[in-house]
């Protein structure tokens, strides 16, 4: 089980801020493929990965990152702080 959290328009497009998912995905990219296959709203949210950023356990990483031992994966658009 892994917590998946969404922010900004990713959250809006998927329609929820957080969900707990049962997955055997080995990497973030594998998890994205699983999510895309669930429902059109996921496919829409993950249509263009270059428009997305990912953090595993609150650390920015990339879509090749392994999920072994991870507790939380976050998907969001490029950050606009400052």
């Amino acid at each position, binding site marked *: 089980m892994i917590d998946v*959290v969404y*922010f*900004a*328009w990713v959250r809006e497009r998927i329609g929820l801020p957080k969900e707990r998912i049962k997955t055997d995905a080995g990497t973030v990219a594998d998890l994205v493929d699983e999510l895309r296959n669930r429902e059109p709203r996921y496919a829409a949210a993950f249509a263009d990965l270059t428009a997305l950023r990912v*953090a595993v356990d*609150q*650390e*920015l990483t990339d879509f090749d990152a392994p999920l072994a031992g991870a507790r*939380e994966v*976050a998907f*969001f*658009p*490029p*950050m*606009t*702080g*400052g």
Partner: protein
Amino acid sequence: MTVRVQEAPFDIGAEVAAFARGRSDIGAIVTFTGIVRDVGDGLQHMLIEHYPAMTQPAIEKIEAEAASRWSLGDSLIIHRFGPLTPGEQIMMVATAAPHRAAAFQAAEFLMDYLKSRAPFWKKEVTGDGEAWVAAKPDDEDALSRW
């Protein structure tokens, strides 16, 4: 080294005064303050969303990186979230260093990294609707100079 992530407004004058108070070991203080701009497109408010579990540690990491690159007497980062109206202060950074070059460079470094690496997202709400602010390619490019 202080990081504060908060919904409440901050008092820029009081923050700068407190940051500067009693320092005789450093010669230069630089501050940056970001303000919600009203560019005449009917902005009613800006909503800032963030990733609570990540925000504080991510900013502390950026601050520690600045401290490792420059000789800093101190640094302060305050970043707000939630709804803000035009003219409100969004965030500030302050750096204190022996000389001006380090204070300026560290402040610019912190700003460049906060722009693209701190987990905040801005949405603008106008009379016509609402839209997420897109990251600018310039902001990502700015990181390459450090």
